[in-house]
C-alpha cells in the first residue's frame, strides 16, 4: 500500500546570484492507486514537483512520504519509483530488450533468466514483443512510448511518475494512448503522478487534478470540481476549452454592469455583498443567443465545428466566446443578443481572484463539453 504524502514542499534554486523559488509550500495527499494529474502553465513548478518526487532534485524544505516511508533524502534509485520522460529517454545504443531490462539488471538481484521473463511478459502486455530486438531509432513514436512505459512497468514500482509522456505524439495517437494509459494504470493499481500542461489531457485522465501556478498549488480536486467550483479566477481560466469568458463589472445593488452596456441582474446578491467591483465569468457553453435580451455583442467570427458552432463576439473591445447549437449561425458582423443563467455564473474578487460564487446548476446538464477540444 503506497500513497504519497507531500508536506510543505519547498524547492528553491540557488543560481549563485539569486534564489528562484520553483515550488512553495506544496502539500497534497495522494491515495494508493490514485491517478493524480499535476497541471499548470509552463514554469508553474509542476515538473519540479515531479522531479522532487522522483529524487532527481534535492528538496529545499518539507517532506515526501511514500506510504509509511520517509523518502525525502533518498536517492532516486532507492525510492521504488519509475518515471516516464517526455522524450522517452530511451537508451539509443540498447535494444528494446536492453532498455526495459536495464533497471532490473542494475538494481535488483534477479537472475538473468528472471529478468528476461519479466521483460518478455511486459513486452507482451504492451504489444511490443516483436520489437524486442530493435533499437529505439527503428521505432515509431508510439512504439517508443510503449517501450518507455514498459521500462517503468517492469520494475513494478510503488509509484509511477510521468512527465508529459504524450506530448510528442500526434493528436490521434495521443488520444488512443490516453485511454490505454488509464486502463493500464487501473489494471496495475499503482499510484501515479502525471504532469501535463494540457488541461484537456488533465481533465480526461485524472482521478483528481492538482492545478499549480507560480510554484503554488491552487486547487486539488476531481475534474468536475475544478471545472465547476474553481477556488479562484486562475483555475477557472486555466481549466476549460475554450476558456471561460471574463469581464470586470461594477456592483450596484443587485446589478452588475460592465463594459459595452453589459448589465446583469442578480437574484441572489449575497456573494457580491461588500464588493464594488467583481470579475464575472461565464463558460462559453452557458452563453445562449436569444431573440432579444438586455445584453448584446458583435459577432466577429463564426467557426462551424460540425456538432456545434463557436461564436467569437466582441463587447466594447472585450472578447466573448460562445459554444452554440450548429443551427445558430448569425452573420459575421451582425449584432446578437445573449443571455445566461445565474446558476451558471462565476464571480471572483477583482483583487485577489478568489471565487465568490461558482456554478450552482445541476450536474447532469453541465460539464459536457469540458473534455473535448
Amino acid at each position: 500500500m503506497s500513497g504519497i504524502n507531500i508536506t510543505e514542499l519547498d524547492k528553491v534554486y540557488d543560481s549563485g546570484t539569486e534564489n528562484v523559488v520553483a515550488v512553495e509550500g506544496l502539500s497534497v495527499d495522494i491515495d494508493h492507486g490514485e491517478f493524480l494529474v499535476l497541471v499548470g502553465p509552463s514554469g508553474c513548478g509542476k515538473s519540479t514537483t515531479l522531479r522532487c518526487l522522483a529524487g532527481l532534485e534535492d528538496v529545499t524544505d518539507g517532506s515526501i512520504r511514500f506510504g509509511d516511508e520517509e523518502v525525502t533524502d533518498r536517492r532516486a534509485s532507492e525510492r521504488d519509483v519509475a518515471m516516464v520522460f517526455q522524450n522517452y529517454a530511451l537508451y539509443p545504443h540498447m535494444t528494446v530488450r536492453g532498455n526495459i531490462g536495464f533497471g532490473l539488471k542494475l538494481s535488483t538481484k534477479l537472475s538473468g533468466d528472471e529478468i528476461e521473463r519479466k521483460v518478455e511478459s511486459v513486452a507482451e502486455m504492451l504489444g511490443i514483443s516483436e520489437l524486442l530486438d530493435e533499437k529505439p531509432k527503428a521505432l515509431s513514436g508510439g512504439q517508443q512510448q510503449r517501450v518507455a512505459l514498459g521500462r517503468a512497468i517492469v520494475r513494478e514500482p510503488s509509484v509511477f511518475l510521468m512527465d508529459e509522456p504524450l506530448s510528442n505524439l500526434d493528436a490521434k495517437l495521443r488520444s488512443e494512448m490516453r485511454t490505454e494509459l488509464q486502463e493500464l494504470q487501473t489494471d496495475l493499481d499503482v499510484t501515479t503522478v502525471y504532469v501535463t500542461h494540457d488541461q484537456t489531457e488533465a481533465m480526461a485522465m485524472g482521478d483528481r487534478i492538482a492545478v499549480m501556478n507560480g510554484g503554488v498549488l491552487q486547487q486539488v480536486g476531481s475534474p468536475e470540481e475544478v471545472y465547476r467550483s474553481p477556488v479562484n479566477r486562475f483555475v477557472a481560466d486555466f481549466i476549460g476549452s475554450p476558456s471561460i469568458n471574463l469581464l470586470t463589472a461594477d456592483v450596484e445593488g443587485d446589478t452588475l454592469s460592465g463594459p459595452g452596456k453589459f448589465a446583469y441582474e442578480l437574484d441572489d446578491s449575497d456573494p457580491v455583498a461588500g464588493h464594488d467591483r467583481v470579475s464575472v465569468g461565464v463558460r462559453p457553453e452557458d452563453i445562449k443567443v436569444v431573440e432579444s435580451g438586455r445584453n448584446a455583442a458583435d459577432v466577429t467570427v463564426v467557426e462551424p465545428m460540425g456538432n456545434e458552432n463557436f461564436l467569437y463576439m466582441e463587447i466594447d473591445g472585450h472578447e466573448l466566446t460562445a459554444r452554440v447549437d450548429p443551427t445558430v449561425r448569425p452573420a459575421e458582423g451582425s449584432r446578437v443578443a445573449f443571455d445566461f443563467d445565474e446558476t451558471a455564473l462565476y464571480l471572483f474578487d477583482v483583487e485577489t481572484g478568489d471565487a465568490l460564487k461558482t456554478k450552482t446548476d445541476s450536474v447532469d446538464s453541465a460539464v459536457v463539453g469540458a473534455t473535448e477540444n
Partner: protein
Amino acid sequence: MREQQRKDAVWRFLTYAFVITMVVVMMVPLYWMLVAATLPQEQFLQFPPRLIPGTAFLDNFAALQERLDFLRTIRNSVLIAVVYTLLSLVLCSMAGFAFAKYEFKYKEPIFYAILATLVLPIQLLVIPLFLLMAQLEWTNTFRAIILPWAANPIGIFLMRQNMKSIPDALLESARMDGATEFQIFYRIALPTMRSSLAALAIILFLFQWDLFLYPLVILESADMYTIPIGLAQLTGFQRIYYDQIMVAATLAIVPMVVLFLVLQKQFVSGILAGSLKE
C-alpha cells in the same frame, strides 16, 4: 541555346581535366615511392628511371632491417600512438562529461583556460618539457612521449560539445534505474558517443603518429625510435640508400593509407570535428 550548351560542355571538360590532373599529382609521389621501394638500388639508379614496380621489396627491407631495426620502430610508433589514444580518450571523455553535464565551481573559467591553450603551438612546450623530463629522468622513455598531450585540449573541447547533446533525461533515467554516476558515464554517455569517439580517436592517433620534433628531442637510443625519428635518422647517414628509405616510407605510409580508405568516414568527420573549434 546551342551556344550555351557548347560552353557548358567546354566548362565541364576543363573541370574534369583539372580534377584529374590534381588526382595524378597527388598519386605520383605515392606511386614513385612504391616503385623505388620495390626496385634494387642498381636498377633504380639507372637513367632513365624505371617506372614499373619491381620485386625487390623484401630484399630492400632486409637491407634496411640490417641498418636499423625498422620493425621495432613501427612497433614503437604503434604502441605509443595506441596507448596515447586510449589514455587520452579516457581522460578527455571523462573530463568532457563533467564539463557538459555537471555543475561545479569555476566551471566556466577553468574550461576557457583549457581552451586558450588550444592556440599555443606544441613547439612552445618542447623546451620546458625536455628540461622537465630530464629532471624526472624520463628522457628516452615512452611515458615521456605519451603523457604530456594525453590531456588534450582539443579532445576535452570536442567531448564537451558532443556530450552536451546527450539529453539530460537519458542520464536521469539511468539514475532512476539505479546507475551510479560512473555507470551513467560509461554505460549510457560513452556508448551514445561512439561516432564522436571514433572521430576523436583518429585526431589523437594522427597527432601522435605525426609528432616529430618532441620525440626527436626525447628519444635517444635506436631501440626507442618512432617511425619519424627512424626515418629522419636514415636520411642523415653519410650515404643515403634510397631504396631502403623508400621501403621505410612505404611501411609508414601504406598502412595509414589503407586505414584511411577503410575508415574514410571517420577520418573526414575527424578532420571536420577538429576544424570546428572556432
